């Protein structure tokens, strides 16, 4: 048997490795950026998701104040992970409103009592209509909405500590 044949498996393996490395190096390709950025929020009016926070409608955004718009659900694990960062954003002066996706009032209340409630308004998006309307493909996602109800920025996935200054910056820019 020729010697070079013995090297073929190794060469093939490194080919595979290169392929894997290439795919690992690609940014999180699962993320689907919203095409609604730079466009106004769609019209909606949702009922309140919990008793102690008011409901959410498009009109609430048109008061000249930029806001964070958080898409979450009580059954979503990354949403629990980002709760401390949302709380930090609130303490630094961000006004955060939210929609709870396909959720039950009891579950939302339970979730908020466990992980904190940084939201000023929470709408119940039982059919994911608003979520789809603003171009969100999963939970959690966080949008920056300016004072005229325009979507200016989208953050996909849970908010890590390093994302907090970025979001504050984007809020400032939306002013």
């Amino acid at each position, binding site marked *: *048997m020729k010697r070079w044949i013995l090297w073929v498996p190794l060469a093939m393996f490194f080919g595979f490795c290169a392929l894997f490395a290439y795919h690992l190096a690609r940014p999180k390709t*699962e993320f*689907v*950026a919203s*095409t609604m950025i730079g466009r106004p929020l769609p019209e909606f009016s949702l009922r309140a998701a919990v008793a102690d926070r008011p409901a959410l409608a498009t009109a609430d955004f048109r008061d000249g104040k930029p806001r964070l718009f958080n898409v979450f659900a009580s059954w979503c694990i990354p949403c629990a992970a980002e709760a401390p960062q949302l709380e930090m954003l609130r303490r630094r002066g961000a006004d955060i409103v939210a929609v709870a996706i396909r959720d039950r009032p009891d579950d939302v209340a339970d979730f908020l009592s466990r992980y904190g409630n940084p939201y000023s308004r929470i709408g119940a998006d039982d059919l994911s209509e608003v979520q789809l309307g603003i171009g969100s*493909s*999963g939970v959690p996602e966080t949008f920056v909405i300016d004072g005229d109800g325009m979507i200016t920025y989208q953050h996909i996935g849970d908010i890590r500590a390093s994302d907090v200054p970025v979001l504050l910056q984007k809020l400032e820019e939306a002013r």
Partner: protein
Amino acid sequence: MITGLKPKHQRLILVLIALIALIGAGLLAASALRNQASYFYVPTQMAEKPPAPGQAVRLGGMVQEGSLQTLADGVTTTFVVGDGEATVPVRFAGILPDLFVEGSGVVAEGRLDAGGTFVADNLLAKHDENYVPRELQEMTEHQKNQVVAETEIGA
């Protein structure tokens, strides 16, 4: 019989058979992959460069509002899948996934028929919000719609 051959030659024959089989497997696989892999289309691509009728492909897009109809047999459904620029009529005989509604995203597996209708064998609908199929990104580069669907078969 081959017993007359020298052992060295016998070994060579085995090695040769093995090599031929493996190279054959490689070539066969390569050509089959080129022909049999099912490509992912969005309606715009399907309108511009339709696949050959009968070739297995996947079609992804949004189910157009008001297009969903159940035919008289009670089990065949027709609807239109669009991406904001082009549309493709789809026919599907089978049980619709529950989260399949007008305005939602869908990935259909099937083939175009001669009349330009996409005949779907399978509709892949979403079953977890946290999952997004990588195939759909290609779509969003092409059009303005946001689609959520799950192409995972399971497991």
